[in-house]
């Protein structure tokens, strides 16, 4: 059991001068009130820094050492800071101190600082190996998130509900760590290794005797092959872990720069749109050029039609005149020149009656009709084509493409403005890298499955050869084989125990989380329990048995807090809960319920809170005798904060 006794900071965050928090020995809650920017998160980070030597921001992001230096002091050229943490662990008192001093006048990077760390037990300074081992045992880094957390970390637990999520898998591994699963799992793995070592020893011994030599050699070979696959599997697992860590890092970075990532996406889309608009403009301009080549015909259509009508009129008149002339001639000569036949008298009378008055035969050749017919024929050759509709369509498309280009230009300018001072190519490269890493992770998963299958094949071969060796056993081999059998039997027990323990844990965590959830929720009449999945993700179950599939951000936090408390209640590893501003998404009723529940979540609870989240009088009323101490963070200047006792 780990408990905090005292935190002392100087030069860290807004704490330019020495600032001290004393945590009472007895079980209960210590509350630290502070407005925004006063240094609540810095106090949480000071505890993290003491344990891990890493400067954190919100969530689990690490930052440069320089960002932890008090800005007032840094402006005066003082970059030194000290973080001291007094603890009690398994009955012993410890003092953990980290002192950071600059190596250069104006340090920038972590390499520009020197860190001195000391862990004292009862006044005696421990060596580095013992210090590292003890700090790891007190608060392993991968489980620190269950002891020291803020609203952002609480938000991450929703990932546990997504079974294929890798970050959910990492969190559930950390949960199993805090719950002690690694003790049994390590035992299983170590027994496996020892059993294989014993199998190798048996095989080696067997190969010395003629009767068992062949089986012994085959067994040795099978063990060697298995070992090779096991090493490859380990290599692949390390590779996968590295890839997952890299992906997490990039995703965190991209999340942090989400606004820039969005701007890059907009920039890329706008550039594509602009390119497309320009291409359309080129195509439409070319279509317009072709259409305009024929457009003059449209302009001439009316005059050509008029000329044609006039020519047709002239030709018609000329033909009429010719016909009249021929008739007059036929009447006068009683002979038709066209058909070269005589015209009987009665026909001549009928013809004369059909003639207009004063009709006379034409004596000269009339070329007017011929010319008019020739014009008509020429004008018929004028191909009239109305391209006005086509020109209108193409022009409209061209105009739209120009508008699209201008609009895309506007979006490009906006995105560039957002990205000012940032390298979009770097962010773009990171996004590309993320996609590539996704592919590599997939391949690594496949390779791991393949290796596991190959190891399984070798295990079967080793088991078969071991049976053969036992059947052909010699007295010299008996001792080796007995050791091998004992190890294998113990391994089988631990193998089974891992799953059994995990199943029991899930049931216990589910039960504890349900109790805490029902204490904290304001919908007690509606909800019956929480249901746990294989990854320790919790789902709210209604009284009618229905699972709640869309819970609010506030409900997410209440469920996450229930999980935190349940882990504390069931973990072999126990320690304080330090929570920074965890009520951001909760309404006053839920906040009050959570505060009331705090004493049952862990023996020692430190709550960093702003009075906007909950009033001091309310905290006192809700916690009663469980409230051990209250501090407040007072603004001295914009960069300096003082800690004082509030009660």
């Amino acid at each position, binding site marked *: *059991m780990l408990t905090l006794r005292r935190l002392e900071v100087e030069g860290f965050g807004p704490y330019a001068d020495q600032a001290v928090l004393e945590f009472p020995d007895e079980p209960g809650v210590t509350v630290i009130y502070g407005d925004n920017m006063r240094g609540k998160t810095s106090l949480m980070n000071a505890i993290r820094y003491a344990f891990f030597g890493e400067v954190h921001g919100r969530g689990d992001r690490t930052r440069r050492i320089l960002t932890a230096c008090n800005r007032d002091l840094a402006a005066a050229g003082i970059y030194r800071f000290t973080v001291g943490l007094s603890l009690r662990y*398994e009955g012993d008192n410890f003092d953990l101190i980290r002192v950071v001093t600059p190596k250069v006048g104006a340090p920038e990077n972590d390499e520009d600082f020197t860190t001195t760390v000391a862990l004292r037990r009862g006044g005696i300074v421990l060596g580095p190996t013992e210090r590292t*081992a003890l700090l*790891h*045992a007190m608060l392993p880094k991968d489980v620190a998130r269950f002891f020291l957390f803020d609203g952002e970390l609480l938000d991450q637990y929703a990932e546990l509900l997504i079974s294929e999520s890798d970050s959910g898998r990492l969190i559930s591994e950390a949960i199993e760590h805090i719950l*002690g699963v*690694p*003790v*049994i799992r*390590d*035992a299983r793995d*170590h*027994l*496996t*290794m*020892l*059993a*294989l070592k*014993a*199998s190798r020893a048996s095989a080696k011994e067997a190969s010395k005797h003629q009767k068992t030599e062949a089986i012994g050699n085959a067994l040795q070979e099978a063990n060697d092959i298995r070992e090779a696959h096991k090493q490859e599997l380990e290599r692949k697992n390390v590779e996968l872990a590295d890839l997952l860590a890299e992906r997490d890092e990039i995703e965190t970075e991209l999340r942090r720069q989400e606004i820039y990532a969005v701007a890059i996406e907009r920039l890329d889309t706008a550039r594509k749109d602009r390119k497309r608009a320009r291409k359309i403009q080129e195509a439409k301009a070319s279509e317009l050029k072709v259409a305009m080549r024929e457009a003059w015909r449209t302009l001439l259509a009316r005059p050509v039609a008029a000329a044609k009508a006039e020519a047709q009129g002239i030709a018609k008149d000329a033909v009429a005149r010719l016909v009249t002339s021929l008739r007059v001639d036929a009447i006068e000569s009683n002979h038709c020149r066209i058909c070269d036949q005589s015209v009987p008298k009665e026909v001549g009378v009928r013809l004369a009656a059909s003639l207009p008055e004063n009709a006379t035969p034409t004596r000269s050749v009339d070329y007017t009709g011929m010319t008019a017919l020739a014009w008509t024929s020429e004008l018929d050759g004028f191909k009239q084509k109305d391209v006005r509709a086509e020109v209108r369509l193409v022009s409209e498309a061209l105009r739209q493409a120009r508008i699209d280009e201008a609009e895309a230009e506007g979006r490009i300018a906006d995105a560039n403005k957002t990205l000012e001072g940032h390298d979009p190519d770097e962010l773009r490269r990171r996004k590309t890298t993320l996609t590539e890493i996704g592919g590599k992770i997939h391949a690594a998963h496949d390779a791991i499955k393949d290796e596991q299958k190959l190891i399984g094949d070798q*295990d*079967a071969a*080793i*088991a*078969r050869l*071991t*049976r053969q060796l*036992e059947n052909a056993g010699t007295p010299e081999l*008996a001792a080796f084989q*007995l*050791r*091998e*059998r*004992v*190890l*294998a*039997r*113990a*391994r*089988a*027990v*631990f*193998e*089974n*125990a891992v799953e*059994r*323990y995990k199943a*029991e844990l899930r049931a216990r965590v589910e039960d504890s989380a349900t109790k805490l959830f029902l204490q904290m929720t304001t919908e007690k009449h509606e909800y019956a329990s929480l249901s746990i999945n294989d990854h320790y993700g919790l789902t709210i179950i209604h009284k009618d048995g229905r699972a709640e599939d869309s819970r609010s951000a506030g409900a997410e936090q209440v469920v996450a807090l229930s999980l935190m408390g349940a882990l504390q209640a069931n973990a*072999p*590893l*126990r320690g304080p809960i330090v929570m920074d501003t965890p009520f951001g998404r909760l309404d006053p009723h839920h906040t009050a319920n959570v505060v009331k529940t705090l004493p049952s979540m862990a023996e020692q609870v430190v709550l960093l809170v702003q009075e906007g989240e909950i009033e001091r009088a309310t905290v006192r009323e809700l916690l009663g005798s469980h409230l051990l101490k209250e501090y407040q963070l007072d603004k001295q200047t914009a960069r300096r904060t003082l800690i004082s006792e509030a009660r």
Partner: protein
Amino acid sequence: MTKIERKHLMLAVLASRDEIDPDLETGLLEAIVNAEADAFGDSDTAMRAIDSAVTDAIERRGYLQEAKPTTDAANVNGTEGEA
């Protein structure tokens, strides 16, 4: 990890033993859990302690009964048969 906290782990191990290999002695299993809990995160130390616990168990032969044949699936090295 305190003794009380180890108790949960040990109970799961003993329940597993009762289920799949009831003849395996409690002393050995307890020694293995203690070895892992004491040397948590230090594989070499844990394996040395387990190795030595197995040697002790074999020496206490009277306390370690051999199991009936078990299935290959639960038994990587095929430890069936009599001692």
